[in-house]
């Protein structure tokens, strides 16, 4: 076992003690240095000294993405600039970005999180790791890069884009691990096929470290089936660190949260009450060690669950369910609540359908129009109109069964839907708000 994995197996009592001790340092630090946090605590009538047990954390106020926007650029920064070592920003889809300055220790802890995920996947210093996440303000590229270097891997920092060259380098350098978004890997696979490159035959690829966008088990199975690699889930968000907050364990279906650094809670998004382990709700994180931009009870908007019971791998760090949806991704179509992940899962149940799709919503005078565009592939293509109509009907039936709605299924030309080198956008909602 790599020594970096040692904390993964820390006895639970020791872990809880450590979490409490870290919180008892963090809360006064944040209270002293971040006016917004102090104001909110005062409004609630809660003082740092009120944190006596871990359960007392529930008395403290939440932070949200809007707080990061409102306090842009440095309102939530707790450390002086002389201590800051790195900035990361997330563009956000609307208006102002968010800015997360980090100290050298913050970067080191984040790096450790990524390295522990990779070690858990079975990646070692003998691996050649291609980082195809975007480098720069986005945390994906540098996060994966530092994590892989920390493990002692040979790192190939291709960044995103220039896909044909990426495939050439992958072959020529014997790349064994690729880090990118699941949607970029699907794009890479399409280009590889066009170039006549078979991942099994022509490359040494064994692992994919996929994150930065929600994806379903069905897409994971597709990826593993088409390429013969193990597709691992790495979870994280810029507000908390970047990728490497949690990673999926080969022994269970969930992701171990590195809760010695990132303390998780699940809350009911409506009542904001903390839910017991085992119940699904919104994931909330507190950064136990971060000093640049500490986050106390940050609401991720990601829906998940903390599993109960012990993982057979022996890791004591709690396991969260794969995040298949963000609470703000939910669509209401004809009065039905639908998550894009449900649509993806039902599409992938039709084996010949390409993993490239787009959900489009628009409104007419009287009602919503709900369309799903699906790319035609060599598998779906037929000389027979009725065979192609049958594919369309199978897709429609699968969606009807899972989602309970009947969208119009449009077959479109291969490669005609947008590809993404970063986070893909699969929903276009042009309905009048």
């Amino acid at each position, binding site marked *: 076992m790599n020594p970096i994995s040692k904390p993964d197996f820390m006895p639970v009592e020791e872990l809880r003690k450590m979490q409490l001790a870290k919180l008892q340092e963090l809360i006064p630090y944040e209270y002293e240095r971040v006016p917004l946090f102090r104001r909110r605590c005062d409004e609630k009538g809660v003082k740092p000294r009120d944190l006596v047990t871990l359960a007392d954390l529930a008395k403290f106020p939440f932070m949200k993405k809007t707080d990061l926007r409102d306090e842009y650029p440095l309102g939530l920064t707790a450390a002086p600039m002389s201590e800051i070592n790195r900035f990361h920003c997330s563009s956000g889809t609307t208006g102002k970005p968010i800015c997360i300055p980090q100290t050298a220790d913050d970067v080191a802890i984040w790096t450790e999180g990524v390295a522990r995920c990779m070690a858990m996947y079975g990646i070692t210093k003998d691996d050649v790791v291609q980082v195809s996440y975007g480098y720069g303000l986005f945390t994906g590229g540098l996060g994966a890069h530092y994590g892989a270097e920390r493990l002692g891997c040979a790192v190939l920092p291709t960044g995103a884009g220039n896909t044909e060259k990426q495939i050439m380098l992958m072959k020529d350098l014997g790349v064994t691990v690729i880090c990118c978004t699941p949607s970029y890997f699907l794009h890479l696979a399409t280009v590889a096929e066009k170039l006549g490159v078979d991942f099994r035959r022509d490359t040494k690829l064994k692992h994919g470290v996929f994150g930065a966008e929600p994806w379903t088990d069905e897409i994971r199975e597709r990826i593993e089936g088409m390429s013969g690699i193990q597709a691992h889930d790495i979870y994280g968000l810029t507000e908390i660190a970047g990728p490497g907050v949690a990673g999926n364990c080969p022994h269970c279906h969930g992701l171990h949260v590195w809760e010695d650094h990132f303390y998780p809670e699940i809350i009911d998004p409506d009542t904001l009450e903390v839910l017991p382990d085992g119940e699904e709700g919104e994931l909330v994180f507190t950064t136990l060690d971060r000093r640049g931009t500490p986050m106390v009870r940050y609401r991720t908007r990601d829906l998940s669950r903390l599993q109960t019971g012990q993982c057979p791998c022996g890791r004591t760090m709690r396991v969260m369910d794969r995040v298949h949806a963000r609470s703000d991704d939910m669509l209401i179509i004809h009065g039905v609540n639908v998550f894009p992940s449900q649509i993806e899962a039902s599409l992938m149940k039709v084996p010949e359908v390409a993993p490239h799709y787009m959900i489009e919503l628009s409104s007419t005078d009287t009602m919503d129009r709900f369309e799903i565009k699906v790319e035609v592939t060599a598998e779906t*293509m*037929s000389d*027979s*109109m009725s065979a192609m109509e049958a594919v369309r009907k199978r897709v429609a039936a699968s969606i009807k069964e899972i989602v309970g709605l009947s969208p119009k299924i449009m077959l479109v030309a*291969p490669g005609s839907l947008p590809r993404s080198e970063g986070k893909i956008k699969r929903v276009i909602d042009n309905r009048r708000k």
Partner: protein
Amino acid sequence: MTVKQISIFLENKPGQLASICRALAKENVNIATLSLADSADFGIVRMIVDDHVKGCEVLGRAGFAVIQTDVVMVTVPDRPGGMAEIMERLDAAEVDIEYSYAYALGQGDKAVLVFKFDDNAKAEAALA
């Protein structure tokens, strides 16, 4: 005679057929005949070209979804009743026609049609 037909997916937007034909022309692939099948939202172009291997390759590279299918070329006497005789023989052999279109190059007093049958071999035997 069995020949290879290439079928190409046609998205319902302007210029699609033109770009298929242009891609083939650039590589000197000649179209002998073509037929269009369409629904409200998409279409399938079926064509016979002089070099189907090259045709498929050219269109695949240009990003089209393209497949090859076996079809049967049937020569029909160009006179009243010519087609009826052919159909009767196919009926007798219990062969179903999936689709059919005319081959552009007629041969004197004969017309040539392209057929896709549910069982091409059986159809050819019936017409032999």
